[in-house]
């Protein structure tokens, strides 16, 4: 004790940096561990829905593409696919024009208007976690929840009362599944927010707040590394831990 220990200055720095910036290191490790532990397809909710590649039914009654193009001469893209309607897979044309999309019956070329119950039926058909009715169907036009990109508005939100509080979002014009959300995605989103330190938009990774903490934690790590070298080269734990007798 009489001689000042050279490593103690590093230890003081290490402790103060731990308090000021090191807590973010803990946040990084917890949020990073969350993102690493849960597999990305699970986070994306791939297990929530069936992949449906229904074969086109009534192929002989489906109108040719040419007829669709005559009805929609401005179409930039036309897709023949199947949609779950009236308790069956029905062939439909999905038509894109001027950046918008709609679906028409592939036989009559009549526009298909999807009702709330149609969307609910589609959701329940593709939902993969057991046979259960949706707990809630909402029509969202403004003030989207933070988990939804506002570009998707207006949108149908179909909720299921399950372990992960699943929400499926559907396009009102085509009945396409826009996105899927559940508790672990929401947790991932919060962890991502904590990881990049953008507590509002959760997208900006270029903030000086983040950069400052990274630089400071770099210095913090160096002080720890120096202490590690000191401890490993020391043949014996420090003074206080060695107690011998008086005799």
């Amino acid at each position, binding site marked *: *004790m*009489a*001689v000042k220990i*050279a*490593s103690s200055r590093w230890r003081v720095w290490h*402790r103060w940096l731990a*308090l000021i910036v*090191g807590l973010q*290191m*803990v946040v*990084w*490790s*917890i949020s*990073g*561990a969350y*993102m*690493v*532990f849960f597999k*990305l397809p699970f986070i994306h909710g791939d297990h929530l829905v069936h992949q449906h590649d*229904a*074969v*086109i039914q009534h*192929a002989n009654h*489906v109108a*040719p*593409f*040419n007829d669709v*193009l005559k009805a929609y001469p401005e*179409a*930039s*893209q*036309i*897709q*023949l696919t199947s949609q779950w309607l009236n308790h069956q897979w029905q062939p439909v044309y999905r038509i894109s024009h*001027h*950046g918008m999309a709609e679906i028409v019956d592939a036989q009559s070329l009549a526009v298909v208007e999807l009702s709330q119950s149609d969307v609910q039926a589609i959701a329940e058909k593709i939902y993969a976690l057991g046979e259960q009715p949706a707990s809630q169907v909402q029509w969202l036009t403004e003030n989207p929840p933070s988990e939804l990109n506002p570009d998707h508005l207006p949108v149908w939100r179909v909720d299921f009362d399950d372990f992960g509080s699943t929400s499926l979002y559907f396009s009102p014009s085509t009945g396409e599944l826009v996105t899927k959300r559940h508790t672990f995605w929401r947790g991932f989103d919060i962890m991502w927010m904590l990881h990049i330190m953008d507590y509002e938009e959760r997208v900006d*990774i*270029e903030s000086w707040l*983040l*950069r400052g903490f*990274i*630089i400071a934690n*770099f210095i913090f*790590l160096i002080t720890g590394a120096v202490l*590690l070298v*000191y401890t490993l*080269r020391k*043949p*014996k*734990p*420090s*003074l*206080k*831990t*060695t*107690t*011998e*007798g*008086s*005799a």
Partner: protein
Amino acid sequence: MMRFLQWLHRWTSLIIIIQVLLWIISGFYFSLSGHHEMSGHQYHQMDHSHAPLASSRALDWPQIANQFSGISGVDLRTVGEVPQYVVTHDDGVSYLNATTGELWSTSEAMAASLALATYSGPGAIESVTPLTEGSSEVNGWREPGYRVDIRDDLNTRIYVDAASGTVIEHRNTPWLLADWAFKLHFMDYSGERNFNHLLIVSAGVVTLWFTLSGLILLGRNLARGDMNPRRKQTYLEFYQAQQQPIASACGGGGTCGLCKVRFRGLVPSPTKNDRAMLTESDLNDGLRLSCQHRVSKGHEVDIAATDARQIKLKLVHNRVLTPSIHELTFLPQTESDFNYQAGQFMQFLIPCRTGNDAVVLHRNYSFATAPGQPELTFTVRKMPAPNTSCEPGLGSTYLCSMKTGDTIDAIGPMGDFLLNNEAANERRQVFIGGGAGIAPLRALIQAELESAQSNRSIQFFYGARNKSELCYYDDFMALQSEERLQYHPVLSEQDDHWRGLSGFVHEIAQAWIQTQDVQSLDVYVCGPPAMLAATQSMLRAIGVPQEHIRYDDFGI
């Protein structure tokens, strides 16, 4: 618990520190670059024209349905300026030229123009290279296609799929650097940017232990006040830093009771450890343990032991007394009139190097002889390593390996483990000791025997593991045969050749004391912690008055 956490923090950091460094560096690279810079899409433009489909087609539904089985979807779109069918069926995906009805094919010239249509930068095409198996720069694309190199500041290259005519990806130099950062950050060097594989999960577990142990240790430091910049030294730290003679065996833990100081005037209220180690009258006299109180301007403090000073000792003899105990004999170098009382101890200042740091260890050893000779004799028990991962005691190892002529500094004398010489004390003197506790008891017994005015009878109970560990056995046997004392050596290990007492020394002593009038005894105890504790509770149980018991604590 905290020692375990320190150990854990140290070892997990050793395992993971390089990766944490890589995470910090690659994370900083991400933060500096930003999403767009790393995407490879600096010169990428999307087609937002929504140009209408061309109407001339050689092929239409339902002829398409006749060419494939199990069709689940057909997509009519424009590639370049040519309409194309994308048919998804049982055997995969097929691309058809809608104008000719043939399978789609992409020429080099077409690949170049398709690539250019998605390029918004200043460069021109440098070369178009056919590829047979995609590119390692595009994860998951192993199909035939083209690499279109653009001569620009970013070394842009555009990959085009031959079967579909689709522009797969733009790549450039910043993307390549970012890709390396992703490899480092995700610990995935395959280029797949997968961050759920076993290696990084393991690293995550280690990192969690590493940071959480650090967090708990930090909380402990905060709770202890280690980080309070206004925190003062304790008086023990203060006196040790000043090289003042102050005794401590436990290093400031408040458990050895040696670092007594006297407060005058303003006396701080006693702590729990003060109360445990000091008597009520000591406390009322202003005595406190110096390790329990912090330096403050309002205090007036004296070190209780005033005779003590620092002297230099020269080793004149180092002999092995028993397999585990050395006897060291020194001559004082700096003082000719050095004096002490039997039962006291010296605090040795043991120089020690730990890494680059010079540290002085404080170790206390009692005098093993009564005063009156020029030499000072000590017994030192070599502390073995408690386990293989730990080295033996630094202090005792240093002392036992000293050679004749070597010198060492020591402070003393200190301690109040003295003979009870109050007036008209004719009580029987009972000494109970074990192992290395021999030294102060031997000094006290010698002093009692030499004392001219005292004629008190002496009982000495001494325990050791086996016969070879009985220190000074022959000396005490000789004194016994001269009927100057009653010597009761006790062995705790089984020994068929031993015809003396066996068992624990405090039990043998108890058997004898119970035949005596407990009011007519003075008891002195010194030995290892377990033996000391057992003896103290034994004496309390059979009713020996507290003021007739004196003991010397090893201070552990």
